[in-house]
């Protein structure tokens, strides 16, 4: 049994058939996981200024870039093992770098609230065994975490939910479009206008406190009565809700206070994003957007978007992430003018503009380690195939020695 690193569910019931040191067949993985495990079509090759180079000189060049930089940034590590993340934090500390990851424009705020214990949460196993009302809010779990519904939330039979989805569970979707998750929720899909989450929460809070809300009165009272009757509920907060209420996160805390039997679960995308947030939180007390300068300083200007907009960084190390793909063009305009070091198993859009490319092993397939699932449980990753690629942990260690 192996662990899939396709998404933050970290399914640990995967079988893989290996032939000629390549994965020939995967069993029990979703299509996303299968593609991840079968490996990259285009492996990254070590290069300096887009010209092939040997591995050692790539490391040396990367170290030289970091030495000459006055304000470097270490970005990514969401697709790396916990061990590599710890090494990454040590490197950032040593070179006084800014550190950020994709959670600064993803679920970072929500994970911060959960780690600060401002929001109630539970484990995915609790949800499987006990949950009777599930709310997918701004999240299309069916497409983003394909095995979420079948493995943990809606379909499986749990200890106290022996009849599973047929009688014991109720799934509700709140979204701006009829996603695949909403199609499964059928009669309990609440469509809201774009950025209408805040208004929806306010109306729901009114309905929960016994008043008749002005907004969609009939549906809202119906939803409130379902939520009130729940014995063990879970709200799966997707990026749709996080983006919509970004400036006013307290409103979700207020709603959670009115629903004492509900737990909040962040729907994390990258397989070890929560691991990075937890590691940095343990080290500094913040989940992302940190600058090490003797002590850790947390400010919004240290988010990758702000740093690139303000042109406040002069070197960028990207580990297992692809900012050129995920950020808007206006934000990445500054990127080609600074040296970028890309550490990744496969070619990405970022590797195409990087000054130095250093290939690493794909974690969970070519290297072992551990990762943190979306609910905070640590899951072990096993090595499936053998090859000579160094892990990102080893590369960061070498980089630290060379700087």
């Amino acid at each position: 049994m192996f662990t899939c690193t396709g998404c933050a569910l970290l399914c640990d019931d995967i079988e893989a058939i290996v032939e000629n040191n390549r994965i020939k067949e995967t069993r029990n993985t979703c299509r996303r996981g299968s593609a991840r495990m079968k490996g990259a079509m285009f492996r990254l090759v070590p290069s300096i200024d887009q010209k092939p180079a040997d591995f050692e000189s790539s490391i040396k060049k990367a170290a030289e870039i970091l030495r000459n930089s006055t304000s470097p940034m270490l970005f990514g590590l969401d697709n790396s093992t916990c061990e590599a993340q710890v090494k990454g934090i040590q490197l950032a500390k040593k070179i006084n770098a800014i550190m950020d990851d994709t959670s600064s424009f993803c679920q970072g705020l929500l994970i911060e609230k959960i780690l600060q214990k401002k929001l109630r949460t539970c484990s995915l196993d609790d949800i499987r065994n006990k949950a009777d009302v599930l709310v997918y809010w701004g999240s299309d779990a069916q497409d983003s975490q394909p095995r979420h519904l079948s493995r943990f939330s809606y379909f499986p039979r749990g200890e106290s939910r022996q009849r599973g989805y047929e009688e014991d569970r109720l799934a509700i979707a709140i979204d701006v479009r009829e996603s695949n998750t909403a199609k499964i929720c059928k009669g309990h899909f609440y469509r809201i206008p774009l950025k209408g989450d805040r208004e929806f929460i306010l109306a729901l809070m009114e309905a929960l406190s016994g008043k008749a809300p002005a907004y969609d009165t009939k549906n809202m009272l119906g939803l409130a009565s379902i939520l009130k009757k729940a014995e063990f509920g879970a709200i799966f907060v997707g990026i749709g809700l996080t983006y919509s209420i970004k400036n006013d996160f307290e409103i979700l805390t207020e709603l959670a206070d009115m629903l004492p039997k509900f737990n909040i679960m962040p729907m994390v995308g990258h397989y070890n994003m929560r691991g990075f947030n937890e590691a940095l939180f343990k080290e500094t007390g913040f989940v992302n957007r940190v600058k090490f300068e003797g002590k850790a300083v947390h400010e919004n200007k240290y988010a990758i978007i702000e740093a690139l907009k303000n042109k406040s960084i002069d070197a960028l190390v990207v580990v297992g992430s692809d900012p050129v793909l995920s950020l808007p063009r206006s934000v990445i305009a500054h990127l080609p003018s600074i040296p970028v070091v890309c550490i990744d198993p496969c070619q990405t859009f970022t590797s195409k503009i990087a000054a130095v490319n250093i290939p690493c092993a794909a974690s969970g397939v070519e290297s072992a380690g551990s990762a943190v699932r979306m609910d905070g449980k640590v899951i072990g990753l096993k090595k499936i195939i053998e090859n000579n690629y160094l892990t990102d942990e080893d590369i960061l260690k070498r980089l630290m020695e060379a700087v």
Partner: protein
Amino acid sequence: MVTVMEIYQLLPKTNCKKCGESTCMAFAVSLLGRKKKVVECTPLLEENFKAQKEKLESLLLPSAGAEETGMIVHTELCTGCGNCVVACPVDVANDPHGAGMGCAPTNDKVIFKVVDGKVLASNIKECRRFGKSKVLCYACIDPCPTGAIEFV
């Protein structure tokens, strides 16, 4: 999905009984249930029915790869989420501590398995739609949002 009337309209409608059925309508029902083949209608093989025969074959083409229960898995639509694996009542009965709990199947008695991110049907004789005393079960179709499982 193709209907009996669509098939019937393309048959010679002479009730010649050469196929062994009493009427062309009965033959259409047998064609739809994959009990008879198009070539068993001998008048349809004649030159003047050529266009109708081709149309009929193209209509019946999607059901050609169907299992005995009529199940077709459209692998190009399947995302491998495994909803059908866990929702199938036969899988739950045969593997309560594996597929029934949402985990990987622990034995070979299950109907659905996910291989390479696509669902594969096996043990089709266990399916509730199999055999004479079949039940019109929708347990694997309902939880599939992409419509990857179809019965013809």
